[in-house]
């Protein structure tokens, strides 16, 4: 028990003396986080300033929420915000279920060797860079030589300019994202399936259940907590979309459906040097993201504890 300030200070020095080696080992990590993740947070101030790179953060004048006001009147930002939500929402509907279905299907493959082979193949695209994936998509969808348009031509259709037409951007983006990540994301669900007690299947077998019934009535309900947690995490990340991939795929003619907040920040801030406006957009996004992730975590904690019952 510490009785007074002096004693606790004494304890503190004792601990420092005893563990100086540990603090030395910890120092590079602490310095790194301070320098590269916490110091930039100070730079968020420029969202509230009329920032000039020559005057610096301190030298620039305060403007309150003027940058945010400008942002909300900027049609391009408003469009980018709704595009972000729409693309994430579409991903939730179309991409989210795919790894679950894949995991269920892997689980029904009887031959361990076949399953291992199939998994090796579908995990692979996760390790390929988005630049290569974009390159493959561009080659694939090329109006003149791309295999998709060759097929369309073969069937007697006109070639489609997939990458220059706004209505095609989202299907192409979400489809190729599924190709890249769905296989790898199935790992989490496979781990959950591996935890299902075999006795459940054995007794269902004895009762004459079919494999289809066992999948629906045993496997799926048993991995439901995992599905719910993943769903909550996904909703928490609603304002985060794969902008590094979007930058590679979009072009001015598809901005109306493809431009998201992060790509807007990239263009106005890094390409256009409107640092204050872009920082305001980033801060707006980060605050929404924080609130979503935080509430998602709260809900997930509740769900995962009650789902035990």
């Amino acid at each position, binding site marked *: 028990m510490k009785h007074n300030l002096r004693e606790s200070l004494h304890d503190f020095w004792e601990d420092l003396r005893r563990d100086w080696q540990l603090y030395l*080992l910890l120092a590079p990590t602490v310095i790194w986080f301070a*320098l590269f*993740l916490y110091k930039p947070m100070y730079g968020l101030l420029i969202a509230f300033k009329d920032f000039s790179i020559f005057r610096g953060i301190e030298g620039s004048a305060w403007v309150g929420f003027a940058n945010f006001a400008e942002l909300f009147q900027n049609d391009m930002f408003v469009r980018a915000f709704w595009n972000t939500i729409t693309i994430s929402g579409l991903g939730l509907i179309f991409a989210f279920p795919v790894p679950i279905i894949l995991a269920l299907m892997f689980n029904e493959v009887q031959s361990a060797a076949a399953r291992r082979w199939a998994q090796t193949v579908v*995990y692979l695209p996760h*390790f390929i860079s988005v630049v290569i994936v974009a390159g493959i998509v561009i080659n694939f969808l090329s109006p003149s030589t791309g*295999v998709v348009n*060759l097929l369309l031509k073969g069937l007697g259709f006109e070639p489609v300019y997939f990458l220059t037409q706004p209505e095609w951007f989202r299907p192409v983006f979400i489809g190729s994202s599924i190709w890249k990540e769905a296989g790898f994301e199935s790992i989490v669900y496979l781990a959950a399936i591996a935890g299902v007690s075999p006795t459940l299947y054995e007794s269902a077998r004895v009762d004459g259940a079919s*494999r289809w019934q066992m999948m629906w009535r045993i496997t799926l309900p048993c991995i439901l907590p995992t599905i719910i947690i993943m769903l909550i995490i996904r909703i928490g990340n609603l304002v985060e979309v794969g902008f590094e991939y979007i930058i590679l795929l979009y072009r001015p003619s598809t901005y109306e459906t493809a431009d998201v907040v992060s790509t807007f920040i990239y263009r106005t801030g890094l390409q256009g040097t409107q640092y204050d406006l872009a920082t305001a957009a980033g801060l707006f996004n980060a605050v929404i993201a924080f609130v979503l992730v935080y509430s998602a975590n709260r809900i997930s904690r509740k769900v995962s504890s009650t789902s035990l019952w």
Partner: protein
Amino acid sequence: MASFNLYSRGDRIFGWTNAVLLGLFVLSTLYPFIYVLAVSVSSGAAVTAGRVTLWPVDITLAAYDRVLSDRMFWIAYGNTFIYTFGGTLMSLAIMIPGAYALSRKRLRGRTFFNLAIAFTLWFHAGMIPFFLNMRDLGLLDSRFGIIIGFAANAFNVILLRNFFEAVPKSFEEAAKMDGASELQLLWKVFIPLSKPAIVTVALFCIVSRWNGYFWAMVLLRGEEKIPLQVYLKRVIVDLNSNDEFASSLLTARYSFETVTSAIMIASIIPVLIIYPYAQKYFTKGILLGGVKE
């Protein structure tokens, strides 16, 4: 389930349908790779005429000749090796000692540091403040900036810390009896015992370094410093809309498509070499990192 040999007819149909559908998914995952490979070794004329869909036509290595004789390709390849190895070593050198210190329960301030690190998983300043900070630190257009600026992240520190925490006390006590310092303890006891976690983190670093393009594109100006992915982006994405360049590549032997395909294959090969290890350890790492915290 393998113990049940007697399947009903319905179950067999279910099994076959499942196998066929899964097989189709596997093939559609594989097909783009096969297609790119086929295009890369076909003649430019055959690709332009739309004759390549699955198998190579008029097999030629002309596109590879063209790619491998481009000086910029080799510079970018070399740079990627520097960033991958330098960056991964830097990451391990920073995060392993830090995670070890944080795994010691008696460390005063441990909770505060852990929270401060975990907080960065939830909130970060964003693109522009990070960029301006790199600029203030004098790390624009700098190889060292690329290596140090992305050396650590909360996920990997937490993963390593959790692993160190799980090392049984008895190992530690035996070494302490011999009067080992903390550094010796880390080096001789904890690192050897935590090889799987360290290999996992190293592979995470290697793959993200090899594949990363965005910040290298933003931060580096000098041509001679860019990594492979930025080079790839310039050739494949930026020049695709540039018809002049595309048609300058258009000869009977190679075309824009065959050249870009050859570049893609050349940059995928190292990934395929480490893939067997990466697959094994990533699977573990995802579950280790995901289950705890």
